[in-house]
């Protein structure tokens, strides 16, 4: 059992959810997603982000519009669709359950003390 592999698996699971939650807050440019995630201390390579966005877009969870840029080619700004929102809320529900479960499992002693 490789610890790095396990860690990577754990991160990968929540990556999509995190990206979606950034996009949910409003129209966003991919490099902004990277910056925001970096600010939250969750690092992602742009090379990994683009295929993920394309996949989500092809699944109709996201849509984008072109915005002219004064520094370079026109930019793609991504925004969430209704379908994406439903998908996101499902994920959020799962995440909350998961977080609670993990919380409950990792802090059994504290809980016990609280009950007392």
């Amino acid at each position, binding site marked *: 059992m490789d610890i*790095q592999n396990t*860690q*990577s698996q754990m*991160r*990968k699971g929540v990556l999509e959810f995190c990206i979606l939650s950034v996009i949910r807050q409003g129209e966003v440019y*991919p*490099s902004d997603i990277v910056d925001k995630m970096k600010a939250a*201390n969750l*690092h*992602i*390579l*742009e*090379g*990994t982000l*683009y*295929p993920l*966005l*394309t*996949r989500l877009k*092809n699944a109709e969870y996201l849509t984008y519009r072109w915005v002219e*840029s004064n*520094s*370079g*080619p*026109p*930019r*793609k700004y991504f925004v969430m669709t209704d379908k994406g929102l439903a998908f996101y809320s499902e994920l959020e529900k799962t995440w909350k359950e998961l977080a609670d479960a993990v919380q409950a499992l990792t802090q059994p002693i504290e809980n016990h003390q609280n009950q007392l």
Partner: protein
Amino acid sequence: MKKVININFQGRVVPIEENAYDILQKYVDSLKKYFANEEGKDEIINDIESRIAELFAETLKKGSTCISDDDVNNIINSMGRPEDFDGEEEKVKTQLGTEEKTNNTNQQQAAFTSNVNRRLYRDENNKVLGGVCSGIANYFGIEPLIVRIIAVVIFGIFFIPYLILWVAVPSSATQVIGSVRKRLFRDTDDKIIAGVASGLGHYFGVNPWIPRILFLIPFLSFVTRWSSWGMFDFPHFVSLSFSPGATILYIILWLILPEAITSADKLEMRGERVDLNSIKQTIQTDMEGFKNRAEKFGEELKHKAEAFSKDFTPKAQQFGNETAYVAKKASRGFGDVIALIAKIFAYFILAVVLFSIVAALFAVGVTFIGLSPAAEYIINDGWQSVFAWGSLLLFIWVPIIGIITWIIRRIIKAKNNNIMRYSFVAIWLVGLFCTLGLAVSLRNDFRYKSAPNEQQFALNNPTVNKLEVHLSGGKYFTDKKTFKIEPFHFLEDDTVYVPNTRIRIVRSANDSFQVSVLKVSNGFSKQQANNLAEKIEYGISQKDTILSLYKGIPINKDDKFRNQRIIITITVPLGKKIKIDEKIGWHNDVHIGFNDDNWRWRGDYSEDGEYYWESDKEYIMTEKGLERTNKSAFEDEDNNSDNLEKYKRSREELEREIEEQQREIEEKKRELQRSLEDKQRELELKKNELNKEIDTVTRYKYQKAVADSKQKDKKNKCSSNDLTELSSRVYMLQVAG
């Protein structure tokens, strides 16, 4: 000085260094390969390209005149390379620690030294020939010099692996930009041992069975030797038939080649065709400047050697930090190498040991099965036979199956299965218990020895001059269908005949032959042993000079074999002869003893004679003991004088022969000389004749020439005559006209 070109990138004109452009081009190519199977790959690549274009624009805005190598590398590092995508999270973690030092060289070094992303590359920055050695050194984190020295020392073995690694291992130059070139991987999806052969197959674009067979060829001789192979004949196996070259190469490749895990790896593995041209190119580019680098390396070697010698001579106590560092590093490197070699060696030894265990157990197991028809003559029903079967199946066959299963599982890399392992061990322990039980109960059954029970066998005609001991009774049990297991040679329907007999020959006190039979047996009690000894029915008969011994002691299933044995004592009177048939000598112990009444046998040598007993030879009883009647050479002292004479005679004969031959040679010489002289004479004669002939020829020619000239003169005269005639005719005609 660098060349700058303008490119149209995502609809914009970008001034970029030519080198940087190449890097960018290769990066985009690698992305295309990585996303080749992805739905919407064009869009992904387009997105990434436009992001890169944006970053370019930012760089140019800051005031750069063009895009440089570093700019491109930085951008690539922040975007990530295909090989980083899959293992991305790990990288994130390491980056968190080192706060994003995305410097190019750092990256490269990280690839060399970090455990996560370690791969074998040829080191472009520190190479002598192809950079293979320094690449290996980097891979193992040891001093390149050590690898080089080892490589030079074992040049013979390392030569071919070097060439293969040179061609197949990517250079660190290509690594920086996400290599496009094909790379050599182990293909674990299509593996038999470790996927080395199939990886090579992918690399050279051939069927993986071709490298596999190439690896196997050296082993074929090993397989063909199998038949002539003794069961424990390991030196053969290790030295001759085992080809170290192929195995070492395989092990090196196994250790060094990365497994193709990610899809990027797999793409690279199948990548661009490697043909002669690309190999040539690799080698050509590397050969450029080889001389300089070699000189540099020589220099370096010299320095280091000096440093080493300084290090090891007690005089030079003040060596600098530098040398100490190098020495320390070197010793660590040596340690690593030795550890590696030890590891390989250990695996090899382990393989040999496992193989020998399996082979030995297999032999024992098969032997037991071969013995099984005889088993019911030894083993009691009930617990003992249960133990016997338990021993055979669980103690012997289970480990064979276990080891083979383990090896196969290791080879196919199946996960360790503890349940299976423990159940194997448990079953084997049951087997061990059975074996111990069997051993103990058999030992009990054989525990007591019967009291000696000697009977005289009355000979019909004890005063014959010569006694020949023969074997009677038929067929051998040992045909080729079953294994030959002593002492069960003869097996009939319900009786087994055990040739557990010994023959003792002693001198008789009177002038008649005497034969006595001593019956002995073992048993679980003294009583049973005596019983069994008494029950032995052994057939002896005499007819004239022939004493027939039966082929063995009959043992039936009820009484079992409890080491029933008989000792036949034949007393031979002085001056009388005895001969023991070969068949008896073959299947029984024959001992010649005199004063030994303790029933203890001392090998096949008699007490005083020190000569070897041979069956099928006639012996005569003398005062000194038994002696061969037909003495051959080198038997004893009496013979020696004979031998000397023989030698003398033979020597004389030889001398005579030599003389004769010399005479012959001389005669031949003389003959040859005579013939030579004859020939010479003949030659001279011929010469003279030829000379004569030449004389006649010249004379003839001269005569002919003279005759010719005379004839010519005549002709000339004729023609002049004709002319005058003609002219006179003309004249006459004119006159007439």
